[in-house]
């Protein structure tokens, strides 16, 4: 019997272990090294962005009594949003994709390893560029992560921080596009023999669709950024009403990017939990075809809803954008029920990845539903630009993406490091995160509905606003502290963690068929034969192999 599927044959000479040390990491083109570099860097930006969030919450602790000046506050929330979205949550997903897409499709590397290294450098450089705005005398960009024209004109925000922000957008955008090119080429051209498109694990599928969205949306932001830069420095008037320009163009282009962006930062994480639910229920993904279809549906709809961020402009057809936005609930709902269906009749174990995945389900659910609320134009006109929106976005961004990110971290850490993370610390981290999160953001729905605007450096003492803001701040401090058990867990594990072995979770997909960490070209042993979307499971449990979805 032969288990050999398509195994790379030409790597006998270059099999010696990769060089170690910092320099080696920096010069490596190995997809796993680059993946880890991405994830570590992104996590660093998470801490920076989180630190900025803590300043926001400190500022809002007391009504009418600012901690930092209003100008500093504006820089802080602008950079908080920009860092989190551009430097943390998206790039972290690209890091996971870098590491796991080649493994999951049985390839030895990404399609273009050197291009891959280059995208990482663009990203890092872009991140440093963005943050360096804080060092300039006029401070960092301060017009919100959405940078609406004409606030962004050179006369109103002359600071060099704004220019650094624009350049960072271009660099990070370029990095994202290059990574997307790489992921697509890998998925289309590098799959192992037997790994048909419809046998790819869902994480890989979701990264594929995410990459398509990146290609559609990032370049539009680059174009907008280029025009803004030309307006600021070459005397152009694209957004300048006094000379025939139109500020509203910025909003259209920004949200044509910005809305797909929010799915770019959530689809990969949908993929992560779709890996986790089956493994810890010991079942196949329920409705594989439906999930893939739903992902495509979400992606297609997401390029047609941008103006739901612009209901209040009076310049768009509200009912159209309202309707299409609500439609997204349907494919997302399909995913939800597929996840529940995966667990149905399963043998569920509550490992840390599973806990975070369940936390994701519950929290994202609330964020999704508040999304449908604000997709109704009249409701949005009531709560637009209030804390209700801040609550919505954190329920989906943190409750969705970040919970799933933690799930993925606990799930794949053993593969990356060869060591298990401690379960008790993981449980502790989970409960702290869950409680801290809901404390921080639930009350913001109420604050928003009661009329508290977002992006205000100080609020008046109305009703029990101060109490609610304090609840939110206490939650935020708890949430900030919750990364300590995580960091401690990672640190401890790396030094004296329990060895993980190849397949600690009884996994189903190819990454668990190799050593932990995987060797330089990923698979030293022959790949299991690939007859379904879970080759490893079929190999381990031939009597229970589904062999379905071919």
């Amino acid at each position: 019997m032969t288990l050999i599927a398509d195994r790379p044959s030409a790597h006998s000479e270059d099999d010696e272990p990769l060089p170690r040390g910092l320099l080696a990491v920096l010069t490596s083109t190995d997809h796993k090294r680059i993946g880890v570099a991405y994830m570590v860097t992104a996590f660093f930006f998470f801490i920076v962005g989180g630190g900025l969030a803590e300043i926001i919450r400190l500022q809002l602790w007391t009504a009418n009594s600012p901690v930092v000046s209003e100008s500093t506050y504006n820089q802080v929330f602008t950079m908080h949003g920009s860092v989190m979205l551009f430097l943390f949550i998206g790039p972290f997903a690209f890091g996971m994709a870098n590491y796991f897409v080649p493994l999951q499709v049985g390839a030895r590397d990404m399609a273009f390893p050197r291009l891959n290294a280059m995208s990482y450098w663009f990203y890092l450089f872009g991140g440093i560029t963005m943050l360096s705005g804080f060092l300039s005398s006029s401070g960092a960009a301060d017009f919100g992560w959405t940078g609406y024209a004409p606030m962004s004109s050179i006369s109103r925000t002359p600071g060099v921080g704004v220019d650094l922000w624009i350049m960072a957008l271009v660099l990070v955008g370029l990095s994202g596009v290059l990574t997307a090119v790489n992921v697509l080429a890998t998925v289309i051209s590098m799959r192992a023999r037997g790994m048909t498109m419809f046998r790819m694990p869902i994480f890989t599928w979701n990264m594929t669709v995410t990459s398509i969205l990146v290609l559609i949306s990032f370049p539009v932001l680059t174009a907008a950024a280029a025009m803004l830069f030309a307006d600021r420095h070459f005397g152009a008037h694209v957004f300048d009403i006094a000379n025939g320009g139109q500020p509203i163009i910025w909003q259209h282009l920004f949200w044509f990017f910005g809305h797909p962006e929010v799915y770019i930062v959530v689809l990969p994480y949908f993929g992560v939990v779709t890996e986790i639910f089956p493994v810890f229920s010991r079942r196949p993904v329920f409705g594989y075809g439906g999930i893939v279809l739903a992902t495509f549906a979400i992606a297609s709809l997401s390029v047609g809803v941008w103006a739901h961020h612009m209901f209040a402009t009076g310049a768009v057809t509200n009912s159209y954008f309202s309707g299409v936005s609500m439609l997204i609930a349907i494919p997302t709902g399909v995913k939800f029920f597929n996840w529940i269906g995966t667990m149905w009749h399963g043998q569920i174990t509550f490992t840390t990845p599973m806990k975070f995945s369940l936390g994701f389900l519950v929290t994202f659910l609330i964020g999704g539903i508040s999304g449908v609320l604000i997709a109704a134009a009249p409701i949005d006109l009531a709560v637009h630009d209030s804390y209700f929106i801040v609550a919505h976005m954190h329920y989906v961004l943190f409750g969705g993406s970040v919970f799933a990110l933690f799930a993925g971290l606990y799930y794949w850490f053993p593969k990356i490091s060869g060591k298990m993370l401690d379960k008790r610390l993981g449980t502790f981290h989970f409960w702290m995160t869950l409680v801290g999160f809901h404390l921080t953001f639930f009350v913001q729905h109420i604050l928003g509905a009661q009329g508290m605007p977002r992006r205000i450096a100080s609020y008046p003492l109305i009703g029990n606003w101060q109490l609610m803001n304090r609840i939110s701040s206490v939650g935020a401090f708890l949430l900030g502290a919750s990364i300590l058990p995580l960091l401690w867990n990672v640190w401890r594990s790396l030094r004296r963690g329990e060895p993980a072995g190849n397949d600690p979770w009884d996994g189903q997909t190819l990454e668990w068929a190799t050593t932990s960490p995987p060797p330089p070209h990923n698979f030293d042993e022959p790949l299991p034969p690939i007859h379904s979307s879970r080759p490893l499971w079929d190999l381990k449990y031939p009597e229970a192999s589904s062999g379905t979805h071919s």
Partner: protein
Amino acid sequence: MAATRETIQLDDVDHVATNPGRSGEPRIPALAVGVIVWLSSELMFFSGLFAASFTLRAKTAVWPPAGVELGVGRAAIFTVVLIISSFTLHLAVAAARRDDRVGAVRWLGVTLILGTLFVANQGLEYADASFSISSHAYGSMFYLLTGFHGLHVIGGLLLMGAAVWMISGSTSRAPKVPTMEMCAYYWHFVDLVWVVMFANIYLIK
């Protein structure tokens, strides 16, 4: 996708060779996927600029503003020059496929000259223009559109220059056919963008 199919047997990029695809089924080489996908992102970039330009046109009563005189005939001539350069590049690729190095270099050279003529004309047009990027929103869009396109043309010229250098250097073992095909994809794309731009700027009134 006839063009992609042809490249399949010709491609000799290392990782594709070691990973010959499932059950003998032809597989699109990664390089071709990468370039096409990259070009689609470029397309979105230009779409962003076009979207801005169309919106401004729709919101402005007089477009282009009074005092803007464009040499439509001259631009049309150089549009034709650019289109011809697509054909000559195609001939260069065909020559490379026949393993005809001299022919490939010759046609590449012709393409380079045509492309340079195009850029040179654009430079002259800029110098002659009665308006600048800061005259009005129309001027801004004119220079942004043609400028970014021009940068892409210059990028293409550098790429082809590199291809000539790679092919004519006798020691080169670079896989020249795929490289040239990718150059060609890019160049055809840049041409196509120009045709749309020409229609938008010079024809539609």
